[in-house]
Protein backbone atom coordinates (compact mmCIF):
# COMPACT_ATOMS: atom_id res chain seq x y z
CA UNK A 1 0.00 0.00 0.00
CA UNK A 2 1.46 3.33 -0.98
CA UNK A 3 0.99 6.29 1.28
CA UNK A 4 1.70 9.97 1.44
CA UNK A 5 3.10 10.86 4.83
CA UNK A 6 3.85 14.17 6.48
CA UNK A 7 5.94 14.38 9.63
CA UNK A 8 5.63 17.16 12.22
CA UNK A 9 7.62 17.81 15.34
CA UNK A 10 5.26 20.39 16.79
CA UNK A 11 1.69 19.68 17.80
CA UNK A 12 0.54 23.24 17.11
CA UNK A 13 1.58 22.92 13.48
CA UNK A 14 0.04 19.46 13.40
CA UNK A 15 -3.26 20.82 14.65
CA UNK A 16 -3.16 23.67 12.13
CA UNK A 17 -2.73 21.08 9.39
CA UNK A 18 -5.46 18.90 10.89
CA UNK A 19 -7.92 21.83 10.90
CA UNK A 20 -7.26 22.60 7.25
CA UNK A 21 -7.28 18.97 6.13
CA UNK A 22 -10.59 18.40 7.88
CA UNK A 23 -12.05 21.51 6.23
CA UNK A 24 -10.80 20.32 2.84
CA UNK A 25 -12.33 16.89 3.54
CA UNK A 26 -8.99 15.23 2.77
CA UNK A 27 -9.03 11.42 3.13
CA UNK A 28 -6.78 11.26 6.21
CA UNK A 29 -6.18 7.61 7.02
CA UNK A 30 -4.53 8.00 10.39
CA UNK A 31 -2.49 10.38 12.50
CA UNK A 32 0.22 8.79 14.61
CA UNK A 33 1.26 10.68 17.71
CA UNK A 34 3.54 9.81 20.64
CA UNK A 35 0.82 10.79 23.12
CA UNK A 36 -2.90 11.32 22.97
CA UNK A 37 -3.97 14.67 21.52
CA UNK A 38 -7.61 15.03 22.50
CA UNK A 39 -8.27 17.90 20.09
CA UNK A 40 -7.18 15.69 17.22
CA UNK A 41 -9.56 12.93 18.23
CA UNK A 42 -12.40 15.47 18.41
CA UNK A 43 -11.46 16.94 15.06
CA UNK A 44 -11.61 13.61 13.25
CA UNK A 45 -14.53 12.30 15.32
CA UNK A 46 -12.64 9.22 16.49
CA UNK A 47 -14.94 7.02 18.53
CA UNK A 48 -14.74 3.55 20.05
CA UNK A 49 -17.35 1.12 21.21
CA UNK A 50 -15.30 -0.07 24.17
CA UNK A 51 -17.36 1.85 26.80
CA UNK A 52 -20.56 0.29 25.48
CA UNK A 53 -19.02 -3.19 25.33
CA UNK A 54 -17.61 -2.66 28.83
CA UNK A 55 -21.13 -2.02 30.06
CA UNK A 56 -22.37 -5.19 28.35
CA UNK A 57 -19.59 -7.22 29.95
CA UNK A 58 -20.62 -5.77 33.30
CA UNK A 59 -24.22 -6.89 32.81
CA UNK A 60 -23.00 -10.29 31.69
CA UNK A 61 -20.70 -10.48 34.73
CA UNK A 62 -23.41 -9.63 37.25
CA UNK A 63 -25.87 -12.15 35.83
CA UNK A 64 -23.38 -14.98 35.39
CA UNK A 65 -21.87 -14.60 38.87
CA UNK A 66 -25.34 -14.40 40.43
CA UNK A 67 -26.40 -17.48 38.48
CA UNK A 68 -23.31 -19.38 39.64
CA UNK A 69 -23.84 -18.41 43.28
CA UNK A 70 -27.55 -19.19 43.12
CA UNK A 71 -26.89 -22.60 41.59
CA UNK A 72 -24.17 -23.63 44.04
CA UNK A 73 -25.59 -22.16 47.22
CA UNK A 74 -29.34 -22.37 46.79
CA UNK A 75 -30.08 -25.14 44.30
CA UNK A 76 -27.23 -27.63 44.33
CA UNK A 77 -26.08 -27.76 47.95
CA UNK A 78 -27.92 -25.42 50.33
CA UNK A 79 -26.03 -25.20 53.63
CA UNK A 80 -27.99 -24.61 56.81
CA UNK A 81 -26.06 -21.89 58.61
CA UNK A 82 -28.06 -21.21 61.78
CA UNK A 83 -31.29 -21.28 59.77
CA UNK A 84 -30.33 -18.21 57.79
CA UNK A 85 -31.74 -17.90 54.28
CA UNK A 86 -29.53 -19.31 51.54
CA UNK A 87 -30.27 -16.54 49.10
CA UNK A 88 -28.74 -13.71 51.07
CA UNK A 89 -27.45 -10.20 50.62
CA UNK A 90 -23.89 -11.41 51.15
CA UNK A 91 -23.95 -12.51 47.51
CA UNK A 92 -23.50 -8.87 46.61
CA UNK A 93 -19.84 -8.93 47.61
CA UNK A 94 -18.82 -11.77 45.32
CA UNK A 95 -21.14 -10.51 42.59
CA UNK A 96 -19.30 -7.22 42.63
CA UNK A 97 -15.84 -8.75 42.65
CA UNK A 98 -16.70 -11.33 39.99
CA UNK A 99 -18.22 -8.63 37.80
CA UNK A 100 -15.09 -6.52 38.08
CA UNK A 101 -12.88 -9.47 37.16
CA UNK A 102 -14.99 -10.51 34.18
CA UNK A 103 -15.38 -6.94 32.92
CA UNK A 104 -11.69 -6.13 33.25
CA UNK A 105 -10.56 -9.26 31.43
CA UNK A 106 -13.19 -8.96 28.69
CA UNK A 107 -12.57 -5.23 28.14
CA UNK A 108 -8.83 -5.70 27.87
CA UNK A 109 -9.37 -8.68 25.57
CA UNK A 110 -11.58 -6.51 23.37
CA UNK A 111 -8.98 -3.75 23.31
CA UNK A 112 -6.27 -6.21 22.26
CA UNK A 113 -8.53 -7.80 19.68
CA UNK A 114 -9.80 -4.57 18.12
CA UNK A 115 -6.36 -3.04 17.97
CA UNK A 116 -4.76 -6.34 16.89
CA UNK A 117 -2.18 -6.19 19.67
CA UNK A 118 -0.16 -9.33 20.30
CA UNK A 119 3.48 -10.19 21.08
CA UNK A 120 5.97 -9.93 18.19
CA UNK A 121 3.39 -8.27 16.00
CA UNK A 122 4.94 -6.65 12.95
CA UNK A 123 3.35 -3.23 12.76
CA UNK A 124 2.27 -2.21 9.26
CA UNK A 125 3.81 1.23 9.60
CA UNK A 126 6.87 2.53 11.34
CA UNK A 127 8.62 5.87 11.34
CA UNK A 128 11.63 6.40 13.58
CA UNK A 129 10.67 8.83 16.32
CA UNK A 130 6.92 8.32 16.08
CA UNK A 131 6.94 7.07 19.67
CA UNK A 132 9.22 9.88 20.78
CA UNK A 133 8.50 13.36 19.44
CA UNK A 134 7.37 13.00 15.84
CA UNK A 135 3.77 13.15 14.66
CA UNK A 136 2.86 11.59 11.37
CA UNK A 137 -0.08 12.06 9.00
CA UNK A 138 -0.85 9.00 6.87
CA UNK A 139 -2.83 9.44 3.67
CA UNK A 140 -3.77 6.52 1.44
CA UNK A 141 -2.58 7.35 -2.10
CA UNK A 142 -5.32 5.32 -3.74
CA UNK A 143 -7.92 7.68 -2.26
CA UNK A 144 -6.26 10.83 -3.57
CA UNK A 145 -7.10 12.33 -6.92
CA UNK A 146 -4.69 14.82 -8.48
CA UNK A 147 -6.47 17.93 -7.23
CA UNK A 148 -6.75 16.69 -3.71
CA UNK A 149 -3.17 15.55 -3.78
CA UNK A 150 -1.94 19.02 -4.69
CA UNK A 151 -4.14 20.56 -2.05
CA UNK A 152 -2.96 18.21 0.66
CA UNK A 153 0.69 18.70 -0.16
CA UNK A 154 0.30 22.46 -0.14
CA UNK A 155 -1.40 22.28 3.27
CA UNK A 156 1.49 20.20 4.59
CA UNK A 157 4.04 22.63 3.17
CA UNK A 158 2.27 25.72 4.43
CA UNK A 159 1.83 24.34 7.94
CA UNK A 160 5.52 23.52 8.22
CA UNK A 161 5.76 19.76 7.90
CA UNK A 162 9.30 18.54 8.57
CA UNK A 163 9.14 15.76 5.99
CA UNK A 164 6.67 15.08 3.17
CA UNK A 165 7.25 11.83 1.35
CA UNK A 166 5.79 8.79 -0.35
CA UNK A 167 6.21 5.48 1.41
CA UNK A 168 5.25 1.95 0.52
Amino acid at each position, binding site marked *: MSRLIAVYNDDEKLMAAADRLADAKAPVEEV*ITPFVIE*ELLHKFHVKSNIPFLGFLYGVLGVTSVFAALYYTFVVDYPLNIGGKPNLSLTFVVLMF*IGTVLIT*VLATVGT*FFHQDRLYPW*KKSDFHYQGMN*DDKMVFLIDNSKLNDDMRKKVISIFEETGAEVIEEVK
Partner: protein
Amino acid sequence: MYKKDVRGELILGNKTYGDITNDILRSQETKAPLWWWLAFGGFFILMTIGLGYYVPLTITKGIGMWGNNNQVVWGWAIINFVWWIGIGHAGTAFSIFLLVFRQKWRTSINRAAEAMTVFAVLAAGLFPAIHVGRPWDEMFIFPYGPNSRGLWVNFNSPLLWDVFAILTYLTTSAIFWYIGMLPDFATIADRSKGLKKKVFKAVSLGWVGKMSSWRKFEDTLVILGGLAMPLVIAVHSIVSTDFAAGVLPGWHETIFPPFFVVGAIFSGFSMVVTLMVLIRKAFKLEDYVTDDHFDAIARIITFVSLIMGSAYLIELFVAWYSGNTFETYVFDENYLKGHYASPYWWMLIFNAFLPQLFWFKKVRRNLLLIFLITIGVNIGMWLERYNIVVPPMAEDFLPAGWFKYSPTIVDKWVYLGTIGLFGVGVMLFIRFIPMMAMNELKQQAKRQTGLKPDEKDLKMYKKIVGDE
Protein backbone atom coordinates in the same frame (compact mmCIF):
# COMPACT_ATOMS: atom_id res chain seq x y z
CA MET B 1 -6.42 33.38 32.25
CA TYR B 2 -6.78 29.71 31.53
CA LYS B 3 -3.24 29.06 32.56
CA LYS B 4 -3.87 30.02 36.16
CA ASP B 5 -3.24 26.73 37.81
CA VAL B 6 -3.67 25.80 41.44
CA ARG B 7 -0.80 23.35 41.33
CA GLY B 8 1.71 25.53 39.52
CA GLU B 9 3.66 24.07 36.64
CA LEU B 10 3.89 20.31 36.92
CA ILE B 11 6.83 19.95 34.55
CA LEU B 12 9.56 22.50 34.95
CA GLY B 13 12.29 23.61 32.58
CA ASN B 14 10.42 24.07 29.29
CA LYS B 15 10.94 20.50 28.17
CA THR B 16 10.45 19.41 24.61
CA TYR B 17 8.87 16.02 23.97
CA GLY B 18 12.27 14.61 23.08
CA ASP B 19 13.73 15.94 26.36
CA ILE B 20 11.06 14.07 28.28
CA THR B 21 11.93 10.78 26.59
CA ASN B 22 15.65 11.33 27.20
CA ASP B 23 15.22 12.33 30.84
CA ILE B 24 12.99 9.42 31.78
CA LEU B 25 14.93 6.77 29.89
CA ARG B 26 18.31 7.96 31.09
CA SER B 27 18.14 5.69 34.13
CA GLN B 28 17.97 2.60 31.96
CA GLU B 29 20.16 3.71 29.09
CA THR B 30 23.16 4.43 31.29
CA LYS B 31 25.10 1.99 33.46
CA ALA B 32 23.55 1.16 36.81
CA PRO B 33 25.18 3.26 39.55
CA LEU B 34 26.90 1.62 42.51
CA TRP B 35 24.10 2.46 44.93
CA TRP B 36 21.67 0.56 42.72
CA TRP B 37 23.79 -2.59 42.88
CA LEU B 38 24.20 -2.23 46.63
CA ALA B 39 20.46 -1.74 47.21
CA PHE B 40 19.52 -4.51 44.80
CA GLY B 41 22.06 -6.86 46.41
CA GLY B 42 20.83 -6.06 49.91
CA PHE B 43 17.18 -6.66 49.04
CA PHE B 44 18.09 -9.78 47.10
CA ILE B 45 19.89 -11.26 50.11
CA LEU B 46 16.90 -10.48 52.35
CA MET B 47 14.57 -12.08 49.83
CA THR B 48 16.72 -15.16 49.42
CA ILE B 49 17.08 -15.81 53.14
CA GLY B 50 13.45 -14.97 53.97
CA LEU B 51 11.66 -16.61 51.10
CA GLY B 52 14.30 -19.15 50.15
CA TYR B 53 14.96 -20.59 53.61
CA TYR B 54 12.38 -19.49 56.20
CA VAL B 55 9.28 -19.88 54.04
CA PRO B 56 10.15 -23.49 53.09
CA LEU B 57 10.97 -24.06 56.77
CA THR B 58 7.47 -22.85 57.70
CA ILE B 59 5.91 -25.09 55.06
CA THR B 60 7.87 -28.21 55.95
CA LYS B 61 7.83 -27.88 59.76
CA GLY B 62 4.49 -26.12 60.13
CA ILE B 63 3.08 -22.99 61.72
CA GLY B 64 4.56 -24.11 65.05
CA MET B 65 7.72 -22.35 63.87
CA TRP B 66 5.93 -19.04 64.40
CA GLY B 67 5.17 -17.23 67.62
CA ASN B 68 1.44 -17.93 67.37
CA ASN B 69 -0.04 -19.81 70.32
CA ASN B 70 -3.44 -21.09 71.43
CA GLN B 71 -4.42 -17.66 72.71
CA VAL B 72 -2.89 -15.45 70.02
CA VAL B 73 -3.72 -17.48 66.95
CA TRP B 74 -2.91 -14.73 64.48
CA GLY B 75 0.43 -13.02 64.71
CA TRP B 76 2.91 -11.31 62.46
CA ALA B 77 1.63 -13.05 59.36
CA ILE B 78 -1.76 -11.33 59.42
CA ILE B 79 -0.24 -8.05 60.59
CA ASN B 80 2.18 -8.07 57.67
CA PHE B 81 -0.52 -9.19 55.27
CA VAL B 82 -2.76 -6.24 56.16
CA TRP B 83 0.19 -3.86 56.16
CA TRP B 84 1.32 -4.90 52.68
CA ILE B 85 -2.21 -4.85 51.30
CA GLY B 86 -2.55 -1.33 52.69
CA ILE B 87 0.62 -0.25 50.90
CA GLY B 88 -0.65 -2.11 47.86
CA HIS B 89 -3.52 0.33 47.72
CA ALA B 90 -1.05 3.08 46.88
CA GLY B 91 -1.23 2.49 43.18
CA THR B 92 -4.94 2.48 42.93
CA ALA B 93 -5.55 5.13 45.50
CA PHE B 94 -3.01 7.32 43.85
CA SER B 95 -3.24 6.55 40.22
CA ILE B 96 -6.87 5.67 39.75
CA PHE B 97 -8.60 7.90 42.30
CA LEU B 98 -6.70 10.85 40.88
CA LEU B 99 -7.38 9.71 37.31
CA VAL B 100 -11.10 9.47 37.94
CA PHE B 101 -11.09 12.83 39.75
CA ARG B 102 -9.05 14.31 36.88
CA GLN B 103 -6.14 15.45 39.03
CA LYS B 104 -3.41 16.08 36.49
CA TRP B 105 -0.63 16.14 39.06
CA ARG B 106 -0.79 12.37 39.31
CA THR B 107 1.14 12.13 36.05
CA SER B 108 4.71 12.00 37.32
CA ILE B 109 3.98 9.64 40.16
CA ASN B 110 1.30 7.20 39.00
CA ARG B 111 3.61 4.70 37.31
CA ALA B 112 5.77 4.21 40.40
CA ALA B 113 2.67 3.96 42.57
CA GLU B 114 1.18 1.28 40.33
CA ALA B 115 4.45 -0.66 40.38
CA MET B 116 4.44 -0.55 44.16
CA THR B 117 0.91 -1.90 44.19
CA VAL B 118 1.84 -4.96 42.22
CA PHE B 119 4.90 -5.81 44.32
CA ALA B 120 3.15 -5.07 47.61
CA VAL B 121 0.15 -7.25 46.73
CA LEU B 122 2.52 -10.06 45.76
CA ALA B 123 4.26 -9.71 49.13
CA ALA B 124 0.88 -9.63 50.90
CA GLY B 125 -0.42 -12.70 49.09
CA LEU B 126 2.41 -14.81 50.45
CA PHE B 127 1.19 -14.60 54.05
CA PRO B 128 -2.28 -16.16 53.75
CA ALA B 129 -0.78 -18.70 51.35
CA ILE B 130 1.64 -20.00 53.96
CA HIS B 131 -0.57 -19.23 56.96
CA VAL B 132 -3.04 -21.98 56.06
CA GLY B 133 -0.35 -24.41 57.18
CA ARG B 134 -0.87 -26.89 54.38
CA PRO B 135 -0.40 -24.92 51.17
CA TRP B 136 -0.80 -28.08 49.10
CA ASP B 137 -4.49 -28.10 50.09
CA GLU B 138 -5.10 -24.56 48.88
CA MET B 139 -7.22 -25.67 45.96
CA PHE B 140 -9.99 -26.34 48.49
CA ILE B 141 -10.50 -22.58 48.69
CA PHE B 142 -11.69 -22.49 45.10
CA PRO B 143 -15.18 -23.59 44.16
CA TYR B 144 -14.12 -26.22 41.64
CA GLY B 145 -17.10 -28.47 42.19
CA PRO B 146 -18.57 -30.46 45.01
CA ASN B 147 -17.85 -33.92 43.66
CA SER B 148 -14.76 -34.60 45.70
CA ARG B 149 -15.94 -33.06 48.96
CA GLY B 150 -19.69 -33.21 48.84
CA LEU B 151 -20.21 -29.48 49.30
CA TRP B 152 -19.29 -26.06 47.92
CA VAL B 153 -17.13 -23.48 49.65
CA ASN B 154 -18.88 -21.03 51.98
CA PHE B 155 -19.68 -18.00 49.84
CA ASN B 156 -20.81 -16.11 52.93
CA SER B 157 -17.39 -16.09 54.56
CA PRO B 158 -15.22 -12.95 54.43
CA LEU B 159 -12.16 -15.20 54.38
CA LEU B 160 -13.33 -16.64 51.06
CA TRP B 161 -14.23 -13.17 49.74
CA ASP B 162 -10.69 -12.18 50.59
CA VAL B 163 -9.23 -14.80 48.26
CA PHE B 164 -11.31 -13.58 45.34
CA ALA B 165 -10.93 -9.91 46.19
CA ILE B 166 -7.16 -10.04 46.40
CA LEU B 167 -6.70 -12.14 43.29
CA THR B 168 -9.03 -9.81 41.38
CA TYR B 169 -7.20 -6.78 42.74
CA LEU B 170 -3.82 -8.21 41.78
CA THR B 171 -5.08 -9.03 38.27
CA THR B 172 -6.74 -5.66 37.74
CA SER B 173 -3.87 -3.56 39.02
CA ALA B 174 -1.28 -5.57 37.09
CA ILE B 175 -3.30 -5.23 33.87
CA PHE B 176 -3.90 -1.50 34.47
CA TRP B 177 -0.18 -1.03 35.01
CA TYR B 178 0.77 -3.01 31.92
CA ILE B 179 -1.72 -1.39 29.53
CA GLY B 180 -0.54 2.05 30.61
CA MET B 181 3.00 1.05 29.72
CA LEU B 182 2.38 -0.15 26.15
CA PRO B 183 3.22 3.18 24.43
CA ASP B 184 6.31 3.62 26.60
CA PHE B 185 7.51 0.11 25.78
CA ALA B 186 7.18 0.98 22.09
CA THR B 187 9.33 4.06 22.71
CA ILE B 188 12.03 1.94 24.35
CA ALA B 189 11.90 -0.62 21.53
CA ASP B 190 12.51 2.19 19.02
CA ARG B 191 15.59 3.40 20.86
CA SER B 192 17.26 0.12 21.73
CA LYS B 193 19.16 -2.61 19.96
CA GLY B 194 19.68 -6.36 20.12
CA LEU B 195 17.97 -8.45 22.76
CA LYS B 196 16.52 -5.43 24.56
CA LYS B 197 14.82 -4.30 21.37
CA LYS B 198 13.36 -7.78 20.84
CA VAL B 199 12.05 -7.99 24.38
CA PHE B 200 10.46 -4.54 24.33
CA LYS B 201 9.04 -5.11 20.88
CA ALA B 202 7.37 -8.24 22.17
CA VAL B 203 5.95 -6.62 25.31
CA SER B 204 4.79 -3.49 23.45
CA LEU B 205 2.54 -5.81 21.39
CA GLY B 206 3.24 -3.86 18.22
CA TRP B 207 1.80 -0.62 19.59
CA VAL B 208 1.41 2.23 17.08
CA GLY B 209 0.02 5.50 18.45
CA LYS B 210 -2.79 5.86 15.91
CA MET B 211 -5.75 8.06 16.75
CA SER B 212 -8.06 5.06 16.90
CA SER B 213 -5.62 3.23 19.15
CA TRP B 214 -5.35 6.16 21.53
CA ARG B 215 -9.13 6.39 21.76
CA LYS B 216 -9.41 2.69 22.68
CA PHE B 217 -6.43 2.96 25.00
CA GLU B 218 -7.98 5.85 26.91
CA ASP B 219 -11.41 4.23 27.08
CA THR B 220 -9.95 0.95 28.33
CA LEU B 221 -7.91 2.68 31.03
CA VAL B 222 -10.88 4.72 32.24
CA ILE B 223 -13.06 1.60 32.44
CA LEU B 224 -10.35 -0.28 34.32
CA GLY B 225 -9.84 2.70 36.60
CA GLY B 226 -13.54 3.12 37.22
CA LEU B 227 -13.82 -0.54 38.18
CA ALA B 228 -10.67 -0.63 40.27
CA MET B 229 -11.70 2.35 42.39
CA PRO B 230 -14.63 0.67 44.13
CA LEU B 231 -12.58 -2.54 44.11
CA VAL B 232 -10.00 -0.95 46.43
CA ILE B 233 -12.77 -0.03 48.81
CA ALA B 234 -14.21 -3.55 48.56
CA VAL B 235 -10.87 -5.29 49.05
CA HIS B 236 -9.92 -3.49 52.20
CA SER B 237 -13.46 -3.57 53.58
CA ILE B 238 -13.33 -7.33 53.15
CA VAL B 239 -9.94 -7.53 54.86
CA SER B 240 -11.48 -5.59 57.76
CA THR B 241 -14.46 -7.95 57.88
CA ASP B 242 -12.04 -10.81 58.56
CA PHE B 243 -11.74 -9.13 61.94
CA ALA B 244 -15.05 -7.34 62.37
CA ALA B 245 -17.05 -10.54 61.88
CA GLY B 246 -15.28 -12.01 64.95
CA VAL B 247 -16.65 -11.61 68.47
CA LEU B 248 -13.46 -10.44 70.13
CA PRO B 249 -13.64 -7.08 71.87
CA GLY B 250 -11.49 -4.72 69.83
CA TRP B 251 -12.44 -6.48 66.59
CA HIS B 252 -16.21 -6.48 66.67
CA GLU B 253 -16.67 -2.95 65.35
CA THR B 254 -18.82 -1.50 62.58
CA ILE B 255 -16.27 1.26 62.01
CA PHE B 256 -13.71 -1.22 60.68
CA PRO B 257 -14.40 -1.14 56.91
CA PRO B 258 -14.03 2.64 56.39
CA PHE B 259 -11.32 2.75 59.03
CA PHE B 260 -9.29 0.11 57.16
CA VAL B 261 -9.84 1.69 53.74
CA VAL B 262 -8.69 5.09 54.92
CA GLY B 263 -5.75 3.49 56.73
CA ALA B 264 -4.74 1.74 53.53
CA ILE B 265 -4.81 4.96 51.55
CA PHE B 266 -2.85 6.61 54.35
CA SER B 267 -0.04 4.05 54.32
CA GLY B 268 -0.14 3.75 50.52
CA PHE B 269 0.28 7.48 49.98
CA SER B 270 3.05 7.60 52.55
CA MET B 271 4.97 4.76 50.92
CA VAL B 272 4.62 6.48 47.54
CA VAL B 273 6.07 9.67 48.99
CA THR B 274 8.90 7.84 50.74
CA LEU B 275 9.97 6.17 47.51
CA MET B 276 9.40 9.22 45.29
CA VAL B 277 11.67 11.32 47.51
CA LEU B 278 14.41 8.73 47.00
CA ILE B 279 13.78 8.31 43.26
CA ARG B 280 13.72 12.05 42.65
CA LYS B 281 16.99 12.49 44.52
CA ALA B 282 18.71 9.48 42.93
CA PHE B 283 17.76 10.25 39.34
CA LYS B 284 17.70 14.04 39.60
CA LEU B 285 14.09 14.24 38.47
CA GLU B 286 13.33 17.53 40.21
CA ASP B 287 11.76 18.90 37.02
CA TYR B 288 9.14 16.17 37.00
CA VAL B 289 8.47 15.53 40.67
CA THR B 290 8.25 19.09 41.86
CA ASP B 291 7.83 20.56 45.31
CA ASP B 292 4.23 21.25 44.27
CA HIS B 293 3.68 17.51 43.89
CA PHE B 294 4.89 16.81 47.41
CA ASP B 295 2.86 19.73 48.68
CA ALA B 296 -0.28 18.24 47.16
CA ILE B 297 0.36 14.77 48.58
CA ALA B 298 1.23 16.20 51.99
CA ARG B 299 -2.13 17.98 52.08
CA ILE B 300 -3.92 14.72 51.38
CA ILE B 301 -1.88 12.92 54.04
CA THR B 302 -2.82 15.61 56.59
CA PHE B 303 -6.48 15.21 55.78
CA VAL B 304 -6.33 11.42 55.96
CA SER B 305 -4.38 11.64 59.20
CA LEU B 306 -7.22 13.66 60.68
CA ILE B 307 -9.66 10.92 59.69
CA MET B 308 -7.39 8.32 61.28
CA GLY B 309 -7.16 10.37 64.47
CA SER B 310 -10.94 10.73 64.60
CA ALA B 311 -11.35 6.99 64.08
CA TYR B 312 -9.05 6.24 67.02
CA LEU B 313 -11.06 8.65 69.18
CA ILE B 314 -14.35 7.12 68.06
CA GLU B 315 -13.08 3.66 69.01
CA LEU B 316 -12.17 4.89 72.47
CA PHE B 317 -15.47 6.73 72.88
CA VAL B 318 -17.61 3.79 71.75
CA ALA B 319 -15.72 1.41 74.04
CA TRP B 320 -16.43 3.71 76.97
CA TYR B 321 -20.00 4.46 75.89
CA SER B 322 -20.86 0.77 75.41
CA GLY B 323 -20.33 0.09 79.10
CA ASN B 324 -19.10 -3.35 78.09
CA THR B 325 -16.40 -4.52 80.52
CA PHE B 326 -14.38 -6.40 77.93
CA GLU B 327 -14.54 -3.63 75.36
CA THR B 328 -13.60 -1.04 77.96
CA TYR B 329 -10.70 -3.20 79.07
CA VAL B 330 -9.21 -3.43 75.60
CA PHE B 331 -9.41 0.25 74.82
CA ASP B 332 -9.37 2.23 77.99
CA GLU B 333 -7.17 -0.08 80.04
CA ASN B 334 -5.02 -2.14 77.73
CA TYR B 335 -4.31 0.36 74.97
CA LEU B 336 -4.17 3.59 76.90
CA LYS B 337 -2.31 2.48 80.02
CA GLY B 338 -1.90 -1.30 80.05
CA HIS B 339 0.58 -3.81 78.68
CA TYR B 340 0.19 -2.54 75.13
CA ALA B 341 0.30 1.18 75.84
CA SER B 342 3.65 1.68 74.19
CA PRO B 343 2.72 0.48 70.63
CA TYR B 344 -0.63 2.27 70.98
CA TRP B 345 0.85 5.63 71.88
CA TRP B 346 3.55 5.35 69.24
CA MET B 347 0.82 4.62 66.72
CA LEU B 348 -1.04 7.76 67.80
CA ILE B 349 2.13 9.84 67.55
CA PHE B 350 3.10 8.55 64.09
CA ASN B 351 -0.35 8.45 62.54
CA ALA B 352 -2.38 11.17 64.19
CA PHE B 353 0.02 13.76 65.60
CA LEU B 354 3.18 13.96 63.48
CA PRO B 355 1.45 14.36 60.08
CA GLN B 356 -0.26 17.45 61.50
CA LEU B 357 3.05 19.20 60.99
CA PHE B 358 2.04 19.31 57.32
CA TRP B 359 -0.27 22.19 58.19
CA PHE B 360 2.87 24.31 57.95
CA LYS B 361 4.00 25.18 54.45
CA LYS B 362 7.64 25.06 55.52
CA VAL B 363 7.27 21.41 56.48
CA ARG B 364 5.40 20.56 53.26
CA ARG B 365 8.31 22.02 51.28
CA ASN B 366 11.07 20.31 53.24
CA LEU B 367 11.95 17.00 51.61
CA LEU B 368 13.80 15.59 54.61
CA LEU B 369 10.87 16.25 56.94
CA ILE B 370 8.40 14.84 54.40
CA PHE B 371 10.57 11.72 54.12
CA LEU B 372 10.82 11.25 57.88
CA ILE B 373 7.13 11.86 58.55
CA THR B 374 6.04 9.41 55.87
CA ILE B 375 8.47 6.77 57.17
CA GLY B 376 6.87 7.41 60.55
CA VAL B 377 3.42 6.85 59.08
CA ASN B 378 4.52 3.50 57.67
CA ILE B 379 5.85 2.43 61.07
CA GLY B 380 2.69 3.79 62.69
CA MET B 381 0.46 1.86 60.32
CA TRP B 382 2.36 -1.35 61.07
CA LEU B 383 1.88 -0.69 64.78
CA GLU B 384 -1.83 -0.08 64.18
CA ARG B 385 -2.21 -3.54 62.66
CA TYR B 386 -0.19 -4.96 65.56
CA ASN B 387 -2.55 -3.23 68.00
CA ILE B 388 -5.58 -4.59 66.22
CA VAL B 389 -4.31 -8.16 65.98
CA VAL B 390 -2.34 -8.95 69.11
CA PRO B 391 -3.68 -7.16 72.24
CA PRO B 392 -7.37 -8.13 71.83
CA MET B 393 -6.39 -11.80 71.46
CA ALA B 394 -3.64 -11.84 74.06
CA GLU B 395 -5.95 -10.46 76.75
CA ASP B 396 -9.55 -11.30 75.96
CA PHE B 397 -12.50 -12.56 78.00
CA LEU B 398 -10.85 -14.97 80.45
CA PRO B 399 -7.79 -13.69 82.31
CA ALA B 400 -6.85 -17.33 82.99
CA GLY B 401 -6.20 -17.78 79.29
CA TRP B 402 -4.16 -14.60 78.79
CA PHE B 403 -0.91 -15.26 77.07
CA LYS B 404 1.94 -13.15 75.80
CA TYR B 405 2.81 -13.12 72.13
CA SER B 406 6.29 -12.67 70.78
CA PRO B 407 7.41 -13.36 67.24
CA THR B 408 10.09 -15.95 66.53
CA ILE B 409 13.08 -15.57 64.27
CA VAL B 410 11.07 -17.31 61.52
CA ASP B 411 8.31 -14.67 61.77
CA LYS B 412 10.87 -11.91 61.52
CA TRP B 413 12.71 -13.40 58.58
CA VAL B 414 9.59 -14.10 56.58
CA TYR B 415 8.69 -10.42 57.02
CA LEU B 416 12.19 -9.31 56.04
CA GLY B 417 11.92 -11.67 53.07
CA THR B 418 8.82 -9.86 51.83
CA ILE B 419 10.59 -6.52 52.27
CA GLY B 420 13.35 -8.03 50.13
CA LEU B 421 10.82 -9.13 47.51
CA PHE B 422 9.28 -5.65 47.41
CA GLY B 423 12.71 -4.01 47.26
CA VAL B 424 13.95 -6.28 44.47
CA GLY B 425 10.76 -5.53 42.53
CA VAL B 426 11.17 -1.77 42.96
CA MET B 427 14.85 -1.91 42.04
CA LEU B 428 14.14 -3.87 38.85
CA PHE B 429 11.30 -1.46 38.09
CA ILE B 430 13.43 1.66 38.28
CA ARG B 431 16.11 0.03 36.14
CA PHE B 432 14.10 -1.63 33.38
CA ILE B 433 10.74 0.12 33.13
CA PRO B 434 10.17 3.83 32.51
CA MET B 435 9.58 5.21 36.00
CA MET B 436 7.14 7.79 34.75
CA ALA B 437 4.49 7.50 32.09
CA MET B 438 6.26 9.33 29.25
CA ASN B 439 3.19 9.58 27.06
CA GLU B 440 1.25 11.18 29.90
CA LEU B 441 4.10 13.54 30.73
CA LYS B 442 4.14 14.69 27.10
CA GLN B 443 0.43 15.26 27.26
CA GLN B 444 0.98 17.27 30.41
CA ALA B 445 3.77 19.28 28.76
CA LYS B 446 1.45 20.04 25.87
CA ARG B 447 -1.28 21.07 28.26
CA GLN B 448 1.10 23.46 29.96
CA THR B 449 2.35 25.18 26.85
CA GLY B 450 -1.20 24.88 25.70
CA LEU B 451 -2.65 24.77 22.22
CA LYS B 452 -5.97 26.05 23.28
CA PRO B 453 -7.99 25.11 26.30
CA ASP B 454 -10.36 22.20 26.12
CA GLU B 455 -13.84 23.69 25.84
CA LYS B 456 -15.21 21.66 28.69
CA ASP B 457 -12.41 22.81 30.98
CA LEU B 458 -12.90 26.38 29.88
CA LYS B 459 -16.61 26.27 30.61
CA MET B 460 -16.01 24.86 34.08
CA TYR B 461 -13.29 27.42 34.72
CA LYS B 462 -15.56 30.27 33.71
CA LYS B 463 -18.26 28.93 35.95
CA ILE B 464 -15.93 28.97 38.93
CA VAL B 465 -13.86 32.09 38.31
CA GLY B 466 -15.97 34.21 35.98
CA ASP B 467 -15.08 35.70 32.66
CA GLU B 468 -12.06 37.82 33.47
